[in-house]
């Protein structure tokens, strides 16, 4: 038997199932990163030797600014891909989604150079509590980026057949991936000032 409201919205709640599902998932993600940001605050309050200030000054702000712009652009192309799909322009959809994937790749490459530069200077997670939380937060964020890239790639290539067979359902799925992607973007928007600028 079919499970109701998989594609169409339920009238009294105004949602299809997966949309509620993703919002709940994001709520739990807020608590995950919220917990880590709280840990940051807690550790910083107890930081008598000033490792948080001196640590932050060793981070590369221009690179991070560039990466912030990259991620914001990727969020824009993400939503454009969904809009194109809604308008039935499948070619445009593929271009925009592909661009999102590409921008995510750029973010990772920049992050790779940032990480290795730190390692060359002998800076590791064990160096101080600041770098411990820096590597944990950015590392976890990168895992989220990689997870998102896997899903985007799936919908771009092997999963794109559904576009023609069940187009409404496919559009819903892209909307959900988009919501996740915006969240990952938003986490970075918080990470950037907290780690690099404060």
């Amino acid at each position, binding site marked *: *038997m079919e*499970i109701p409201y998989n594609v169409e919205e339920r009238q009294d709640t105004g*949602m299809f199932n997966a949309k509620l599902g993703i919002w709940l998932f994001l709520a739990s993600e807020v*608590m*995950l990163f919220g917990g880590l940001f*709280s840990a940051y605050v*807690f*550790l910083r309050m107890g930081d008598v030797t000033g490792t948080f200030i001196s640590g932050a000054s060793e981070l590369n702000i221009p690179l991070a600014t560039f990466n912030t712009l990259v991620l914001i652009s990727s969020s824009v192309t993400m939503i454009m891909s969904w809009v194109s799909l809604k308008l039935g322009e499948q070619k445009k959809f593929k271009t925009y989604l592909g661009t999102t994937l590409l921008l995510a790749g750029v973010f990772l490459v920049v992050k790779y150079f940032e990480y290795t530069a730190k390692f060359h200077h002998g800076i590791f*997670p*064990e160096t101080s509590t600041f770098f411990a939380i820096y590597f944990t937060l950015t590392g976890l964020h990168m895992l989220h980026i990689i997870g998102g890239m896997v899903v985007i790639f799936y919908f771009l290539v092997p999963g794109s057949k559904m576009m023609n067979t069940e187009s409404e359902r496919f559009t819903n799925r892209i909307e959900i991936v988009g919501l996740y992607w915006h969240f990952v973007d938003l986490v970075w928007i918080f990470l950037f000032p907290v780690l690099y600028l404060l």
Partner: protein
Amino acid sequence: MSGQPDTHHEESFWRKYIFSIDHKVIGLQYGITALIFLFFGFCLMMMMRWQLAYPEQPMPWFGWLFGETGVMLPEMYNSLGAMHGTVMIFLGVVPLAVGAFGNYFVPLQIGAPDMAFPKVNMTSYWCYFAGGIVMMVGFFVPGGAANSGWTSYPPLADIATTGQTVWLFGMVLLITSSLLGSINTITTIVQLRAKGLTWMRLPFFVWSQFVTAFLLLLAFPPLEAAGVLQLMDRLLDTSFFLPSGLIVSGEVLNVSGGGSPLLWQHMFWFLAHPEVYVLILPAMGIVAEVLSNNTRKPLWGYKSIVYASSFLGFMSFIVWAHHMFMTGMGSTISAFFQTTTMIISVPSVVILTAMFISLWGASIRYNSAMLFALGFLPMFGIGGLTGLPLGIAASDIHLHDTYYVIGHFHYVVAPGTIFALFAGVYYWFPKMTGKTLNETLGKIHFWLSMIFINGIFMPMFVQGLAGVSRRLWDGGASYAHATDTLWLNEVMSASAWLLGLAQIPFIYNLIKSMKSGEKAESNHWDATTLEWTDAPSPPLPHRNFEVIPEVYRGPYEYSVPGADKDFTPQSEA
């Protein structure tokens, strides 16, 4: 759903029983696995009780587990303690309450063909299963399983043996499992309610699962974050939880320092206090169903109970630091958490009172399920009321980390939650299997369990008030203050082993009835809710109902004046 197997074609053995996406099969998988883990956790405790009653004496029959002498070493005792807590909570009670009963009966009670995301449901079970296996692997790594308590307090846990790393990986899997499960439960309840089933017509069991799912969804991620930080500490030598200048075995630890053990406690209890309500809310849900069915009366104060449980869920997020009065976090913070703790006792009392009043003037059917539900009420009452002195910072100074605490939370979870879960098994077994359980064996199971479980936990209050610490591996033999209450150790241990024997009628009853029990009718207890009135026993694979029911009334319309029978089904127009 396109990937959904059609009920008309035969499924392969693997798809039907192992990697099933039918919520009923997954519920049973959860149930069976959780019961096995419950029994395993119970065995760990029975071994600990030998050591406490007869410290440093070789254990009969099972001594070979501890090497040639047959004596349990302190390290082993610590492992058993940590794993007893972990297994009971994360692998036993919660999976049984939420994974088994929630999974099986939420869709049935709301008139849905399945959970909203069947494949996620399957993934959730297999994450739980993998988490359980990883936890068990811990026993075989060098140094044994995790031995820093189920709370894993650093710095101890940071420098503990490999078993702790295994524990953390196991927890990550278990957290993933309950995250997926809770998303599924909430979506199912919001989206898949049958036509006419408004929020205030939901059986209270569904409400309890709904609030529980929110607690799991929002409280577990911070523990996951904490687990990641502790893994970083253990594997990459960071110092999140290690203060500067920490001395281990006479030498200053070679780490950067600057961390705080208190940070772990905050992050841990932010989960672990809501977790207490994850343990108790589904239990209250089951008791509500069984009570109203066997009193043949509506549940007294249904709306109050619903509002109280939602308020309880909300408040449970802001009471966590009452576990930390002794850490020196300051009297201002203690005062705040003491106040919130007193406030949270109000909704619990509202719920319990409403349940007691439900008994007023009823002609009660004393079947096994009802006996366990009735047992739950005073037992949870004792557990709850003994918690108040622990929630007040001043009296907590004396009681903290004594056997009084152990007595308190075991009254909540063991004769509280686990009795309610037994009630659930007796109440819903006919629905799940189509067979009835033997009532005589059920009553024997109840009375013996009731006597012996009090034999274990009541003396703990006495020992705790006398000041016996919960951490002593010799049961207090080396502790001067314990002398007067030391004899109670043997009473408690004997009760524990007898309680183990008292489960034999239950296990026998389950297996025997499953094979050759009497056939159950589809509405075996003359109940009003959809799982009894509209689905056959057992419900149809993959769709539950012949026709998805419509709902016209509230969940507990028993003995309605003027009705032709003493129950009016929700689906009766």
